[in-house]
């Protein structure tokens, strides 16, 4: 009992310290600007140019007015298309974009929505507002065939699916070896991304070095989490349902430690965040960052497969996953194998988080947002199997992106979660699962 408390205290201390290092950059940034505003309205203005590449719109004037008219302020978007306007406090605001200041040939998609009324801010909130803008020609002209768009979305889907898969393998193997549905797995994804942010932005390392270091730190942290937190719980005979609820508690705890230290804003890494020069691969254009990310992911996943098939520990993982008691009586050190699962799972999750942070944004809850998609992928593939997690996640990623051909993109997460429910109706054991696994 005492050890669990000690481990929890150590864990909190560790998370605060590490997240604090990442937050250091944020604090510096804020002191540069003077006093940190507690509430703000922010957003990013980007449009797709002729080649379909996202380009930021610079120098666009945005005006914010409070509902009672007592406060007005305006600002311009910077060279990344970002704007942030501090407001005096929580309440209702209207946000207006001046269409005359948009770059040449760029128009608002909905010309009558240049003003957003009733944008509500809670205390301490930075509220993002969205002004969809289009390149004038693209707005009227259909630049590509449906098939071209399909291919483009498919590549996006593969990229995103690889990120989900990378993060989800640990989730699935942890379930397979310990029976724990780990709701705090998303926080391992965030942890990796934040540690990489610390190395890359605060310390100024190059992205590659930062990523490698973050993956190592995350692996060690994952191993420690198992050794000093989950293993004592297992040894006490804590039931799997109780552990599930504990993992939810851990998830909330870690998420708000991240928020505490990193702040509520979304941020970007120092390098590779905005790449305009895409590589043309037939109808598909892809920026080098995404191409390299995808190739690395594939390499890592192949490595994982070889590891699981060829090495002793990898075989042990599959054996424990398959039948824990049988594995133990065959002389496999189950605790050691589980510890390896945590180390590897956390390292992979961190890598997934870094890739996700590179192509999207780094934020304190990015992992939690990814968690449900991981569940969808893992359930689709077969809970508890490593390859199932891989296949299922890829399918989820691709279906999500391609679905935007037919339905508005705001519903793509809904699509993924609907797949999750659908698969449980028709084939609850998942694509690669075995029927007797399910209760």
């Amino acid at each position, binding site marked *: *009992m005492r050890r*669990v*408390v000690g481990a*929890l205290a150590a864990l*909190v201390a560790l998370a605060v310290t590490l997240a604090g290092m990442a937050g250091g950059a944020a604090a510096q940034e804020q002191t540069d600007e003077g006093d*940190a505003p*507690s509430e703000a309205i922010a957003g990013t203005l980007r449009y797709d140019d002729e080649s379909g590449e996202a380009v930021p719109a610079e120098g666009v004037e945005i005006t914010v007015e409070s509902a009672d008219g007592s406060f007005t302020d305006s600002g311009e978007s910077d060279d990344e298309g970002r704007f942030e306007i501090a407001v005096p406090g929580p309440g209702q605001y209207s946000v207006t974009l001046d269409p005359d200041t948009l770059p040449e040939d760029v128009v608002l998609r909905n010309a009558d929505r240049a003003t957003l009324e*009733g944008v*509500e801010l809670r*205390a*301490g909130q930075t509220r993002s507002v969205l002004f969809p803008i289009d390149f004038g020609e693209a707005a009227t002209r259909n630049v590509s065939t449906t098939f071209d768009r399909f291919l483009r979305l498919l590549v996006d889907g593969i990229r995103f699916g690889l990120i989900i898969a990378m993060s989800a393998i640990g989730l699935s193997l942890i379930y397979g070896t310990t029976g724990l*549905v780990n709701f705090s797995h998303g926080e391992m994804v965030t942890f990796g991304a934040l540690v990489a942010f610390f190395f890359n932005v605060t310390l100024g390392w190059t992205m590659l070095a930062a990523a490698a270091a973050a993956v190592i730190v995350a692996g060690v942290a994952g191993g420690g989490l198992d050794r000093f937190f989950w293993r004592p*719980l297992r040894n*006490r005979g*804590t*039931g*799997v*349902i*109780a552990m*599930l*609820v*504990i993992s*939810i*508690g*851990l*998830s*909330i*705890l*870690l*998420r*708000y*430690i991240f*928020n*505490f*230290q990193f*702040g*509520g804003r979304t941020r970007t890494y120092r390098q590779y965040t905005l790449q305009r020069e895409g590589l043309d691969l037939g109808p598909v254009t892809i920026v080098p960052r995404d191409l390299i990310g995808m190739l690395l992911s594939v390499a890592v996943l192949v490595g994982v497969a070889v590891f699981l098939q060829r090495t002793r520990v990898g075989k042990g993982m599959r054996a424990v996953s398959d039948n824990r008691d049988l594995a133990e009586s065959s002389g496999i050190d189950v605790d050691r194998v589980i510890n390896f699962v945590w180390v590897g799972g956390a390292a992979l999750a961190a890598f997934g988080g870094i890739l996700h942070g590179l192509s999207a944004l780094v934020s304190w809850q990015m992992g939690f947002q990814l968690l*449900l998609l991981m*569940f*969808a992928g893992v*359930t689709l593939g077969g809970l508890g199997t490593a390859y199932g997690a891989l296949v299922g996640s890829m399918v989820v990623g691709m279906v999500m992106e391609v679905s935007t051909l037919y339905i*508005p993109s*705001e*519903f793509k*997460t*809904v699509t993924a*979660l*609907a797949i*999750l*429910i659908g698969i*449980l*109706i028709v084939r*609850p054991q998942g694509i690669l699962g075995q029927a007797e696994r*399910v*209760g």
Partner: protein
Amino acid sequence: MDWSSIIENALRALVGREAVIYALAAIGLNVHFGYTGLLNFGQVGFMAVGAYAVAISVLEWGVPLLVGGLFGIGAAVLLALLLGLPTLRLRADYLAIVTIATSEIFRLMISAPSWRAVTGGSDGLSGFAGDFQDLNVFPDGNYGFGPWRYTEVGMWNLLVGWTLVLLAVLLVYLLIRSPWGRVIKAIREDEDAVRSLGKNVYFYKMQSLVLGGVIGAVGGMYWVSVQASVTPQSFSPIPTFYAYAALILGGLAKLWGPVVGSMIFWTLLSLTQGVVNEAVANDYIPDSVMDSIQAGNVRFMLVGIGLILLLVFRPQGLFGDRREIALQD
């Protein structure tokens, strides 16, 4: 440090409307998890479905608020059937994943700009709860004593809220001591044994899911009626976890567990948050350690730590019975 206002706020939180809302949500969860052993992690989905059914039926079809309440209950029943059909035959953890996923689906759909005309998008809806205050039985004035002083509006809100809580407790009390309740509790203990007695376990679980979901939806409907507006941001997964914390704190499978748990939960939360906020505001904690924005996170961390410690050291909560909880195996 302004101790008197901290303590006053904590005492007000003891019976405040959050305590009511989460008592209702936790009573529903107690039916699911405490009595039946169903892991519903999407209780907030039931609250949201109830809330939006009320708001939309009143605004779109012009029905009175009370009729809107019936729509809310109907919507919660539908949601329970939808959740139960694929998952109740499966292992407990599948229900956990599907319920949290479904509540997120619902939240994403109601905040989607495409359906703004009906759902109000991320701005939500308002102007549907006029009936609630029109029914107020209290004449204008101030009521109460000590820290619990309210206007007629506050009194009416609390009267309705605690009446709903008492009705829910009464309903659960009557059902759980009935033959139905004994079957439900037997399912929690040993599903196969119940099945071998010829009971349709699936059917009973479904009824339990519907019942607990409807009680949760009543919580959601009360919430938005008192608040007079509804926004999708309110229905993030966090309220479900709050309700779990309150339930486990009070004691699983205890009639008054969720109610007492919710009252203590909100008092503790108000107390700790009050102390932290005051300490930060008065520079007892320097800004380099914690500023006022960061102080807002402390309550969530405490909920996380609290959940972990409770489950590790006292899974039966304050008043529960260790033999009567579905956390083993």
